[in-house]
């Protein structure tokens, strides 16, 4: 069991560019979660899929951020027109519904 896989581990973009982050959940897990973590804001919930369907995106900034789960083996978080304030570690986690979540190693996004 490789755990949750996130790629890339580090990404540097220029202001205004697009960033796509990938997550491969643990096989058999029905739920996938995206979080953003910064020193200032801590761990922020972004969005949640269950059985590939979007369940709760209440934490997603309404502009520029979108997430998809086209199949059970991967999810993507896309940030359009990245801004310096988007710089953070983006964490993906998978689990079996409302029970424990297993976090991936994260993608550190730096927007210059």
């Amino acid at each position, binding site marked *: 069991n490789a755990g949750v896989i996130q790629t890339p581990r580090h990404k540097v973009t220029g202001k205004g560019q697009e960033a796509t982050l990938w997550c491969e959940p643990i096989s058999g897990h029905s739920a996938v979660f995206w979080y953003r973590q910064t020193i200032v804001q801590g761990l922020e*919930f972004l969005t*949640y899929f269950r059985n590939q369907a979007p369940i709760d995106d209440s934490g997603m900034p309404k502009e520029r951020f979108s997430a998809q789960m086209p199949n059970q083996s991967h999810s993507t978080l896309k940030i359009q027109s990245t801004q310096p304030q988007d710089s953070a570690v983006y964490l993906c986690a998978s689990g079996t519904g*409302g029970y*424990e*979540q297993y976090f991936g190693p994260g993608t550190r996004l730096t927007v210059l």
Partner: protein
Amino acid sequence: GDSVTQTEGLVTLTEGLPVMLNCTYQTIYSNPFLFWYVQHLNESPRLLLKSFTDNKRTEHQGFHATLHKSSSSFHLQKSSAQLSDSALYYCALSGSNNRIFFGDGTQLVVKP
């Protein structure tokens, strides 16, 4: 709505002293799941403890916690702190729509 409160942002103590990190929660559900996650520097959050049974102590890696529904609490304790316990600790609640709600985290610093 569902929420988790961790009153201490930073706890500093000397090696060998007992640890207690506070966690209280709010939910409409009568059978919530409560979790403690630990995040060491440059790592992702990792599940430390979980419980859904009222008044039953749960233990792992020297830490323990007891869910008390009467006081909506799930405090984390350890009898003797070690230097390696220095980390960020998150209390979390499985609430509505099976989303997990995290507290703001408590940074534990153990000094020699």
